């Protein structure tokens, strides 16, 4: 178990963040634990001083001779940090500029000021609307899933990373943002003007299907998820359903604490997930008192289910608590801690791997559903959901 003193604090606020982060909320594939230490040293480690002379030779040359002026020392320092982190060869360990920190923080609370749409960067590097949230400004302005956002206030978005693009679109409520949109079937790109509002993401949606199956869709594991899940379960279980469907498709993850809490609702006892790192050995156990530890359960997963989703689905699969239907998951098996640095920038560091109750490391592998079912483009076009259909069939049998 843990080297306890240090780790107690470390795991208090454990967060996942998204690989495919969303304009709206967020998601993705890592797990963040909050930093423990308050003190941060800005002194070079003595072991590095000698070797680092070379860096200062290079710095000095740039300062004296580089053609373009002015030279921003802060940007150079940020670049050096990025370069140093790149030598760790871990894509989940990275530097975060102060502007991006704000976006990430908003994502984890599930509320922000913007236009109310989920977006991602597609394979061609375009910013694409995944879903306009019903009744929110983007939807009211007529944006549709699949629309490409070519420009935001005249700034081209192609080639930007998701957070950069998001930070352009988000802004204080009441202000206006101009989007240049390309839509399939329309030759010329067109402009859309949208007034930003306060957006609260629906963390959870739920309903009773066929009068006998409880269906809960968890969009992300933010700080509101545990409370909203409890409410949904209490409401649905009062109707005595035959079974439950927990839909974790396209749920990119979120807070570790939320993952453990959600897992705890379905698993009566045992370890939900274990973390193993350099100085970390931590098992998260079910606390008992879960609301839905007995009822027949199907978990829907797909290639967008990551990190926190995989923790919950992995534990349910390992214990045979329910079956997984859908497609292979992302395979995000590492845990990060996020630190804020003294100048407001941030640093995310991989501190551990996490393992399922049966000791599986899913990094790069993902979870393979007990029943694999794919959704084809034709299904999508005709509004069919064979994964959900199968889950219902399974529970009704």
């Amino acid at each position, binding site marked *: 178990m843990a080297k306890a003193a240090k780790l107690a604090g470390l795991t208090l606020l454990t967060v996942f963040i998204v690989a495919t982060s969303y304009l709206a909320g967020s998601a993705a594939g890592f797990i963040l634990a909050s930093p423990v*230490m308050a003190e*941060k*040293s*800005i*002194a*070079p*480690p003595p*072991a*590095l*001083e*000698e*070797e*680092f*002379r*070379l*860096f*200062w*030779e*290079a*710095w*000095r*040359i*740039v300062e004296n*001779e*580089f*053609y*373009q002026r002015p*030279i921003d*020392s*802060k940007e*150079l*320092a*940020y*670049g*050096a*940090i*990025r*370069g*140093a*982190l*790149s*030598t*760790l060869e*871990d894509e989940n*360990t990275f*530097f975060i500029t102060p502007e991006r920190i704000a976006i990430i923080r908003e994502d984890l609370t599930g509320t922000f000021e913007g236009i109310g749409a989920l977006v991602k960067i597609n394979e061609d590097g375009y910013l694409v609307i995944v879903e306009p949230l019903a009744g929110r400004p983007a939807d009211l302005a007529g944006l549709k899933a699949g629309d490409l956002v070519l420009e935001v206030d005249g700034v081209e978005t192609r080639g930007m990373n998701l957070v950069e693009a998001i930070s352009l679109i988000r802004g204080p409520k009441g202000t206006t943002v101009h989007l240049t949109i390309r839509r399939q079937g329309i030759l010329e790109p067109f402009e859309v003007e949208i007034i930003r509002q306060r957006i609260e993401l629906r963390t959870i949606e739920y309903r009773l299907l066929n009068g006998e199956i409880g269906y809960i869709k968890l969009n992300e594991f933010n700080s509101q998820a545990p409370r909203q899940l409890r409410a949904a379960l209490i409401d649905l279980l009062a109707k005595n359903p035959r079974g439950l469907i927990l839909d974790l498709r396209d749920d990119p993850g979120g807070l570790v604490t939320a993952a453990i809490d959600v897992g705890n609702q379905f698993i009566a006892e045992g370890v939900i997930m274990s973390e193993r*790192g*350099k100085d*970390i050995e931590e098992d998260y156990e079910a606390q008992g008192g879960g609301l839905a530890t007995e009822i027949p359960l199907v978990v829907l997963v797909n290639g967008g289910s990551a990190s926190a989703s995989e923790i919950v689905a992995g534990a349910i699969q390992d214990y045979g608590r329910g079956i997984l239907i859908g497609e292979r998951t992302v395979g995000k098996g*590492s845990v990060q801690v996020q*630190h804020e*640095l*003294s100048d407001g*920038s941030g*640093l995310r*560091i*991989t*501190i*551990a*791997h996490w393992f399922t109750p049966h000791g599986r490391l899913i990094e790069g592998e993902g979870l393979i559903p007990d029943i694999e079912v794919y959704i084809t483009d034709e299904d999508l076009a005709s509004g069919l959901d064979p994964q959900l259909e199968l889950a219902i069939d399974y529970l009704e049998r």
Partner: protein
Amino acid sequence: MSRIRIKDKKLQRLTLILLVSIVAAASYLAGFASQVIPAYVGEVEESEIFHPTAEEPPEFGVYWEAWNLVEENFYAELPDAQVQTYGSIRGMLAALGDPNTFFIEPPDRQIEKAQFQGRYGGIGAEYTMRNGYLVVVTPFPDSPASRAGIRPGDIIVAVDGTDIFGLSQNEAALLIRGPVGMKVELTIRREGELEPLIVQLTREEIELPTVTWGLKEEEIGYVKLSFFGGRTNEELRHALTELQSQGATSLILDLRNNPGGLIGAAVDVASQFIDTGVILYQRDAQGNDQAFPAKKGGLATETPLAVLVNGGTASAAEIVAGALSDHQRAVIIGEKTFGKGSIQTVRELSDHSSIHVTTAHWLTPQDHEIEGAGLTPDLEVPLTQEDIDNQRDPQLDGALAYLRSLLPYPVSGVLQPVNIMSTKRGI
């Protein structure tokens, strides 16, 4: 910030090389030229080394804050200090957003140096990397490699007993290179031979020729420059002297696919054709211009001249073409040039790595910026895939036709006439 002088003389002398850089992919000489050939001029300048333990800029504190957190928290093993330092230098340079400013590790630096100097101690063979081993493409005539019976297709699997699998092309090449007169033992696999062959060779000074030349027609000389290295001007002067003695009265200077090289070599080369005036202006970060005038003693300052260029003509090669064009000294034929008008300084750091830093832009004698723009030929002649497949060279044909049209008497067998007047001008 305090500066201190390092006592070690070696450290004190940092090599300063001004370079007009371009990255060229080329094939490589055994042991020898690098995949990345920027273009340059070498000058050596004294320089002090900044001492790191002196005050760091306050903005840099965040770096150590970040790295200390990594040391404390990162789950896997940390890279060694050198890897981290190199990575930090790369990241810092990347933050400048200039693709021509970059870092070169010591092994590549040695190869780069040899490229500029145009000579090295080696075995004299062109090779390529295949499946983790070096494959000989051609042994140079009369080189240690050819005298030892090394053949095209031979696979070099070990150098002095060290298996080279897993090494980069440059790393493997550096093992083969070494001081002139020193022996090197190669383990070679050859098709048809069951056992590996062990070959001992004595390294010799291998020169990388950068100039090839010949008479194209009775009175038209042809000179091709593949790179602007430290010996290029000497080679060119030899070629011009020979061609003139063979009766050449006009010249074709082929700068196609020439990625550039040392600025000094560009000035020297241009000075063979231009007797007076400015070859280029160099504009520094403060907007100050420095003129590089033509040097006296050019061998072909009056000879009618056609210059061949294409999209692979860059930096130092564009300096020469731009100067010849602005001085109306030559007709420029071919395709639009690359447009590399920035100048890099190559500085060697104390561990023999180097950084290339963009320090200036250069402009043609008539003040045209080349960076991003390139030179548009007087006579635009494309070279199509069909031409290549059929071994045709309409650009060369155009140059020949142009020069023939200048000859004081008719020449038999003239190809299609080329209308020089219909072509574009200017850059």
